[in-house]
């Protein structure tokens, strides 16, 4: 919980990792390149006093994770989102099992999400069922740019992907987190395109599709599909740290999201360990639009409470203490996405 100016905020960090990118675990130059890329994001967007050494960044101890998220970071509940990358890292970068080992020791602090890959076919479906039973999955994180042998990625509309989404419905896995990356099959198409999210969100209205990084670098495509699909959400991982380095751009992102999809479908995330949650939460609670951006919906205390925790708590059935909730808003939101939009 975070408190400021007499307001108490229930915090859900919707996207955290426990990764191992140490040189010993790097399988090849791609594993090294991947963590260096993350590290450049970290260095580029962190305040100077929050920048770690590359060695610190390679792997975090359990003690450090607990300290950064819960002791120092105000987080009430954190959601582990795995990113396997078994072609890049000997034991995987961040698997469900790695996350689960930590989560089991702190059952009141973490939610463990799983993952699947449609290229694993029938065997992967069985694996998903096992994973769901073992970790009581409510959600999965999908990385469409993951390499597997000769393949450089996949789309949500691939036939096997539908099979996996059907299995998610059967298993009660209702939160599908989607992370787009720079590669896909076929490579000549825009890998960041979110049109496939649009298709599966229509086909599976009972599932929630949380697009990580709010679709960046395709914010406009994300906003557009989210106005049409009420079960599409925006996760703020990677968008949050702009609050420090490029506050005006951050204001525009939040303003655009509030305009298009409204205050109930945006979820906070630090993307730990790329960034730590404490400073992001402190800055966000203090944040207001710059004076020259006067066209956006209000960023009120209630809106901030929803974004920082209450929206994700609803998706994951997290019990929020009564004094930290906000009154249920009926249809007060004026976002474009709160009304059906005619498609030109």
């Amino acid at each position, binding site marked *: 919980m975070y408190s400021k100016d007499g307001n108490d905020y229930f915090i859900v960090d919707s996207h955290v990792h426990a990764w191992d990118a140490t040189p010993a675990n790097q399988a090849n*130059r*791609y594993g090294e*390149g*991947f963590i*260096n*890329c993350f590290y*450049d*994001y970290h*260095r*580029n*967007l962190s305040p100077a006093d929050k920048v770690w050494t590359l060695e610190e960044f390679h792997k975090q101890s359990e003690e450090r994770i607990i300290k950064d998220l819960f002791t120092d970071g105000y987080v009430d509940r954190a959601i582990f989102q795995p990113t396997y990358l078994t072609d890049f890292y000997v034991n995987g970068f961040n698997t469900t099992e790695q996350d689960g080992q930590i989560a089991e020791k702190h059952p009141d602090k973490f939610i463990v999400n799983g993952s699947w890959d449609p290229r694993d076919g029938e065997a992967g479906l069985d694996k998903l069922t096992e994973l769901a039973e073992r970790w009581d999955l409510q959600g999965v994180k999908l990385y469409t740019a993951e390499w597997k042998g*000769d393949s*450089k990625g996949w789309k949500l509309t691939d036939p096997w992907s539908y099979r996996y989404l059907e299995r998610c419905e059967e298993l009660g896995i209702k939160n599908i987190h989607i992370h787009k*990356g*720079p*590669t896909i*099959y*076929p*490579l*000549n*198409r*825009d*890998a*960041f395109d979110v049109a496939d999210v649009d298709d599966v969100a229509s086909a599976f209205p009972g599932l929630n599709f949380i697009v990580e990084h709010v679709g*960046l*670098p*395709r*914010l*406009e495509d994300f*906003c*557009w599909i989210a106005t049409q699909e009420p079960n599409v959400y925006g996760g703020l991982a990677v968008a949050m740290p*702009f609050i420090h*380095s*490029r*506050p*005006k*751009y951050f204001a*525009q*992102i939040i303003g*655009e999201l509030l*305009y*298009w999809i409204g205050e109930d479908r945006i979820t906070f995330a630090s993307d730990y360990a790329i960034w730590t949650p404490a400073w992001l939460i402190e800055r966000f609670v203090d944040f207001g639009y710059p004076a*020259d*951006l006067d066209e956006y919906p209000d960023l009120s205390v209630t809106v901030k409470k929803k974004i920082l925790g209450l929206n994700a708590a609803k998706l994951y059935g997290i019990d929020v203490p009564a004094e930290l909730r906000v009154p249920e808003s009926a249809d007060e939101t004026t976002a*474009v996405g709160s009304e059906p*939009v005619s498609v*030109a």
Partner: protein
Amino acid sequence: MTAEVTAGTPGARPAGVDDGIWAALGTVRDPELDAPVTELGFVSGVAEDAEVVTVELRLPTYFCAPNFAYLMVADAYDAVAARAGSRAVVIRLLDHFASDEINAGVAGGRGFAGSFPGLADGELEQLRVTFQRKAHRACQEQVAARLLKDGWSVPDLAEATLADALPGDELDRLRRRRTELGLPSGQSAALLLQDDGSPIRQLDLPVQLRLAKTTRISIEGNSGLCRGLLSVRYGLPRPDGVDQVIAG
């Protein structure tokens, strides 16, 4: 092409580069960021002798999308070759996961699908057009936003032509985007066009303009992110001016 971006990456021009070659490289744009590679700091070195012109390109991350990377390398090859006379041209993309495939593919004229056998189902022209259209929509919105500040109403914009727009860099840019896409760019052309060249209907104007604004914010934001990533990756001066590029 020097006025495309008001705040370029500091120190973007390597020392000793011939003006003609630099101008040629200035015509090469990052299709996604809609800015010249020279302004973005993507040209890390140019070497010339009597036999060969060698250009080294670098990108903000090791994993930048290979399709956009390929377009920039191929466009740089074409632009420099047009200025290199009888000399050979070598474009070398550095520090990228697909450097070898892209450099060899462009040098050998293999095309994108030929450079990534089994991983692509076609060339990149459709991708390029998709991003030229995004850039065009963002430019249109920027020009229209000026008129709205000058007192025009949104419905009236349906009747506006390029003759109504304020002269300057933004309008010049819009005209160039129109030319690339084969859309009308004369004084009597409608100010707000759909991708197919027909005017945007008055009924669709509010939502289309609003979406174009989001597109512009997305492009400008990505540009800022990429400049920042390039600066930390290569130890360049931080792009302090980037926020000023964003027009409200």
